[in-house]
């Protein structure tokens, strides 16, 4: 019997959906194994169709995107109810992702910047979106823009995670095949990715590390054979789960951590901070400060994709 599956996007860019499509000819295999009951980007199902389903009707729901607004959360709850297995697809659902960078600000700061201070917007009356609005024909409502971006598992129970921004198409395929082959690992596992850090699959030569200065990628011509970190370029590969095939690294760009932390690491950013600080060269306070001065924007760099999933989750107000 074919599996019944719903695919949905919360606060996402659509890259995860495209990654599913990028499985190319394997898409036919997927179609052979699964019937899709919701997939806004590709198919014309409506929320009402889902609401009408019995609870647990779907075998799996694949949810990409972070929880940015109340609609994202409502649909997450809806899909959870209707599915036996909930899968978080991509960095946003898994960790909060790029939208999670909003957690360094409050909702009001965000809205002010977007609607009031925006250079390209004329908004003399200072209108910002409201959750409900009465027109003469009746009431309209909009999803609430949240104060804090959340990961999927912060609003519903999630069985499995397929990491990445975006996930590697073949990894998605192999993760899905676990479902139809009934080979799913214990609940809570990350599937479609490695068990070690990215360094394992990074082709660059790694040696003992001592860093005396950090540089920015535009300031140097990095040695293509040598570990980025050893060249003073902040690379999160050592703290990030493998599985992406070191795509960034191979394009000459250091890792930013989209595959998230390894098992038992509660906070990728802080752990990376610890690792990097450990291998600095200087011992004197002043010299340490001088080296640290060369790390631009450390926290946002360490938590480029994972702020909502980190221990502290957001900036305190």
């Amino acid at each position, binding site marked *: 019997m074919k599996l019944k599956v719903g695919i949905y996007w919360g606060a996402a860019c659509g890259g995860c959906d495209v990654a599913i499509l990028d499985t190319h000819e394997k898409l036919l295999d997927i179609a052979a194994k699964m019937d899709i009951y919701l997939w806004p980007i590709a198919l014309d199902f409506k929320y009402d169709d889902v609401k009408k389903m019995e609870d647990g009707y779907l075998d799996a729901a694949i949810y990409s995107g972070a929880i940015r607004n109340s609609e994202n959360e409502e649909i997450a709850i809806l899909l959870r109810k209707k599915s036996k297995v909930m899968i978080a697809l991509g960095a946003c659902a898994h960790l909060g992702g790029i939208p999670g960078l909003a957690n360094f600000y409050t909702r009001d700061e965000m809205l002010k910047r977007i609607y009031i201070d925006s250079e390209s917007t004329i908004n003399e009356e200072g209108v910002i979106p409201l959750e409900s609005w009465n027109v003469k024909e009746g009431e309209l409502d909009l999803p609430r823009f949240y*104060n804090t971006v959340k990961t999927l598992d912060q609003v519903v129970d999630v069985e499995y995670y397929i990491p990445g921004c975006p996930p590697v198409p073949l990894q998605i395929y192999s993760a899905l095949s676990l479902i139809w082959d009934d080979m799913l690992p214990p609940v809570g596992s990350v599937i479609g990715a490695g068990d070690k850090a990215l360094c394992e699959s990074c082709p660059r030569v790694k040696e003992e590390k001592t860093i005396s200065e950090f540089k920015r990628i535009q300031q140097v011509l990095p040695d293509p054979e040598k570990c980025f970190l050893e060249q003073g370029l902040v690379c999160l590969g050592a703290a990030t789960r493998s599985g992406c095939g070191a795509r960034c690294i191979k394009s000459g760009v250091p890792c930013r951590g989209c595959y998230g932390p390894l098992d038992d690491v509660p906070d990728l950013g802080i752990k990376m901070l610890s690792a990097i600080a450990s291998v600095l060269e200087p011992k004197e306070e002043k010299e340490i400060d001088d080296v640290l001065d060369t790390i631009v924007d450390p926290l946002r760099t360490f938590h480029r994709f994972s702020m909502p999933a980190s221990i502290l989750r957001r900036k305190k107000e």
Partner: protein
Amino acid sequence: MEFEPKLVGFLCNWCSYTGADLAGTARISYAPNLRAIRVMCSGRIDPTFIIKALYEGADGVLIAGCHPGDCHYQEGNYKALRRYKLLKRILPEYGVEPERVHLEWVAASEGEKFAKVVNEFTDKIKKLGPLNMKQSIFDSMKEDIVVHESAGEEKGGEADEA
């Protein structure tokens, strides 16, 4: 009632924990706010511990290790210092006053200093007021809650705990 901060201390076994013991042996009384966790070396202190402690309700975290050059394991304290320095830089990004995390070198012979450090740190945190990290995170999300059709509880029930 006056705010009594809850402070977590990570003390290295050889110098600072011993120094704290010495304060005891010498009966030097100091503020009761600090609860110590003994680690073998300040180099063992993972910044994650500190973040975790702040999240779990500590109003301040003290790290104490051997003086530079005195580390029982030669250089663990330098690593602690470097991590501490970098951690302090990011704390404001979390909206946390960097003074809430403090590092001191306390030798095994410095019982008096340990007492002084704890007193001063306690005073400093008293002035800063409570941190309430966990509570404030959930407070900031109070408006973010979807009214569920079913009477199901909002996920992330840690908020209740806090």
